[in-house]
């Protein structure tokens, strides 16, 4: 048994009390990267030297009797779309193959201040655009439960890092389901917080109004501990929320008696895999047995969430990715004239899916083509938000599947971008409305692949999600299953 098998709370306590050294945690994590990365391709880079230095300074602090923080010595894998000062941050793109930002993301600073150790940078779909991590310039991440399957995406590396035991927790980002879907595929717990709850400063933007950073871990309680560290206002992010941050970990301990669970018919209609459906229904029963009540609700516009998402996200992305132009910090293709340098650099260094979305966004914003599309989609986005507002008048939590299926085979959707986009069908609406959502394991398919349960709540009600998920995990053991390595 590895020290990393402990819960985060236990691990940090052991490190703080000196029972386990931070150096041992780093050793265990690095050993696991060595053992797993060749076959799973979870990490784009490790931070071994920096991690050992950090561990030494944490151990010295503890030896001197100082408080090393609530995450003392906890190794954490960080999605490589999040900037780490002085350490190459690629966003999974050839474009940023050699880019070492001179600044940390705000969440990286917060993690450091809490005593956590960044162990390496996890693989992702290029610029977080994808649902399978197949779009990474650095190759596909394989699912620790079956190497024939994808780990999901875009935070596939972050999910697989936790599932494969490389780190007890990781950081992902979620634009249309990019934390929840890979968490579901890899059998772990991951939460997309309320938009604005966690600072986006240092997160390489895909679609700024949808992107949100969040933790991924083995349990809801671990996620809650991380949420305590990640959350809070940041003056560097104008969209960061000024709301008070509760003690998420403490709130987990409350019961869920009389919690009103909304069941949305649209989440159980055609396209939902029968095994997934059965597991989710079973999980709802388990929540009822804990005292929750179920209420039927209607989210009539969520069926348009994917279409809305695939207008809004590419529009913002087409603009966000204009800065990658070969002038200041990216790769560059040589050319005689500026305009050719631009179009060569962007052709060669962006992958196919990124180009597809940039073009789609450019098309949708262009006055010559479909500029009404962006406005229309933004109006539908309002209707989706209104649906949520109405639903949360009646219920505290909306419960349903995270993804219609379990992890699909690598290459299965390679020829059909649209089929891949539909993997976001249950998750994208939370990003559009800004509400939080959590995915947690609730069973396995007959071929042994994890199934995820999604809970969503009103803005800033993460405590309720984490509490419900934690209470469920006190009654079930799906979250403690490990793939055979």
């Amino acid at each position: 048994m590895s020290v990393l098998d402990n819960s985060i709370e236990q691990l940090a306590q052991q490190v703080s009390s000196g029972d386990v050294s931070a150096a041992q945690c780093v050793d265990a994590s690095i050993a696991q990267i060595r053992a797993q990365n060749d076959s799973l391709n979870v990490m784009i880079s490790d931070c071994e030297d920096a991690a050992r230095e950090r561990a030494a300074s944490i151990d010295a602090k503890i030896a001197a009797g100082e408080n090393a923080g609530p995450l003392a010595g906890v190794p954490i894998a960080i999605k490589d779309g999040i900037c780490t000062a002085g350490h190459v941050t690629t966003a999974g793109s050839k474009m940023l193959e050699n880019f070492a930002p001179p600044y940390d993301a705000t969440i990286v600073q917060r993690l450091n201040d809490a005593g956590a150790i960044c162990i390496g940078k996890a693989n992702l779909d290029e610029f977080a655009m994808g649902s399978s991590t197949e779009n990474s310039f650095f190759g596909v991440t394989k699912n620790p439960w079956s190497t024939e399957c994808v780990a999901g995406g875009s935070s596939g590396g972050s999910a697989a890092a936790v599932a494969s035991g490389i780190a007890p927790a990781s950081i992902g980002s979620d634009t249309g389901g990019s934390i929840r879907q890979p968490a579901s595929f890899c059998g772990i717990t991951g939460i997309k917080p309320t938009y604005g709850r966690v600072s986006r400063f240092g997160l390489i933007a895909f679609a700024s109004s949808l992107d949100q950073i969040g933790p991924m871990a083995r349990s809801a309680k671990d996620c809650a501990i991380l949420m305590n560290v990640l959350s809070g206002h940041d003056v560097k992010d104008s969209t960061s929320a000024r709301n008070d941050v509760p003690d998420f970990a403490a709130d987990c301990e409350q019961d869920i008696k009389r919690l009103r669970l909304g069941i949305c018919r649209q989440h159980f209609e055609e396209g939902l895999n029968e095994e997934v459906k059965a597991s989710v229904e079973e999980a709802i029963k388990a929540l009822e047995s804990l005292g929750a009540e179920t209420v039927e609700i209607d989210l009539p516009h969520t069926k348009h969430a994917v279409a809305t998402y695939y207008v809004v996200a590419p529009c913002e992305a087409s603009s966000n990715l204009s800065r990658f132009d070969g002038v200041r910090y990216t790769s560059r293709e040589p050319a005689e004239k500026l305009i050719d340098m631009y179009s060569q650099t962007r052709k060669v260094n962006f992958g196919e899916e990124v180009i597809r979305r940039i073009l789609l966004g450019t098309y949708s914003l262009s006055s010559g083509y479909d500029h009404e599309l962006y406005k229309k989609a933004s109006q539908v986005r309002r209707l989706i938000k209104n649906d949520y507002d109405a639903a949360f008048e009646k219920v505290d939590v909306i419960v349903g599947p995270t993804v219609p299926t379990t992890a699909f085979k690598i290459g299965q959707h390679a020829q059909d971008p649209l089929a891949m986009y539909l993997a976001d069908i249950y998750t994208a609406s939370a990003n559009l409305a800004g509400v939080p959502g959590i995915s947690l394991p609730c069973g396995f398919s007959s071929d042994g692949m994890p199934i995820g349960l999604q809970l969503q709540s009103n803005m800033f009600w993460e405590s309720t999600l984490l509490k419900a998920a934690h209470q469920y995990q006190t009654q079930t053991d799906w979250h403690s299953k490990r793939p055979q390595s």
Partner: protein
Amino acid sequence: MNATIDRDSIKFSDAKLIVGLEVHVQLKTDSKLFCGCSTKFGSDPNTQTCPVCTGMPGTLPVLNQKALALSIKTGLALNCEIARYTKWDRKNYFYPDLPKGYQISQFDKPVCGEGFVEVKVPKSDQPSRKIRLERAHLEEDAGKSIHDESGKGGVSRIDLNRTGTPLLEIVTKPNIRSAEEAKAFLTELKQILEYIAVSDCNMQEGSLRCDANVNLHFEIDGETIATPIVEIKNLNSFRAAERAITHESKRQFKQWKKSGESIHDAPKQTRGWDDSAQCTTPQREKEESADYRYFPDPDLIAVIITDEEIETAKNSLGELPASLRTTLQSEYGLNEYDSAVIVSAGRKMVDYFRALADGSGKDGKPNGKMASNWVGQEIMRYLNEHNATIEDYPVSAETLADLLSRIVGGEVDQTRGKEVLAEMLSSGCDVQSAFDKLGIVKVDSGDLDALCQQLIDENPAVIEEIKGGKLKAVGSLIGKARQINPNVNPGVLREAILKIIGI
């Protein structure tokens, strides 16, 4: 093209000139619009940059409060509607000195809505006109590209120090009717901006930049025919703006006579003003027509402007140039020209003038005309010679008012007064010390009577002439008197002599 129109009979004087201006004003903040880098001009290239203003991935903009406050202040000074809800949008285009590939600007909710500037073309008998403003919006400046001018196709170099400097873009309606009026508008605008201290307005340093949209309208058989709109860029002085518009209007007229091309036949073109050749020249068209794909910037949130903020901004404006010119005319009795001269020299000069006129006035009435003469001649000449501003002028308004009062009171005449001022300027002394140094003492009435009697006794022929009606002859007595006593006041002496001889 309308084939039925007989262009041959149309003269240039039949054309109505239509001009709209876009003025970019750099706002006077210490730090940039969306990050903390300094806005100082003239530093070494790329030394005033950071990850935010170089557009590094993951970085985010945070709005500079002062830039917004200065925009509100400007809007109020330009009689604009101030938005209660304002937001920022992205204007997308690629250029190497635009780090993010988009400029953060404002599209549909600018800080300032419609307004106007009252403009009078100098030395013309046209009454003043309101030049209508469309809007004014707050945006970030781009960096600087330095291209290889050798023609050998060398690399371009990029300096991002200026990137992110706050700019207020003021857009007029196509409401300007002549090149002179355009220049007068720009002059008045600059004066207002200087008065409210929102910008350095230094055209050499690029803190004030101007583009002009120009075309011609012809009324033919009750129909308006318009020539294609041309945007003239790179107008780096007000004179250049005036000349470029004049040149462009003539060029468009000739072109239209030749081709008959109207606004419906050609898209907006961009031309540059060549100051050395004194003509506009076509600028290379962009690869595709401008398609900026504006959309709301999701990294920034809207700003609500409250009544209190607007009230505070209003109270900080001070009296504006137009109102000051009126005040100088109505309260100080100046003519239009003199009031314009003083107001155009800046708020400090107006303050100086008012202190001078008030301090040297009599019976609660300011000494406007005389103060204006002294300011316009003595002080302005000194400031020009010394390349100084009124704040550097060595003689305070109070001191100079003392001197002017003594001139008014007859202690000293204007000519000697100027000698006194020269003495004060060179030695830094006060009026009385200068009088003492120059030996100026007030001639009392006994001395004056004696002097008059002496002059009358010694110059009987002149006295006869005066009595015969040739009053001018008194002048020769005054000359003689000043040889006897240089302090004698010519006006007073003249009156005394005439009184004694009974005229």
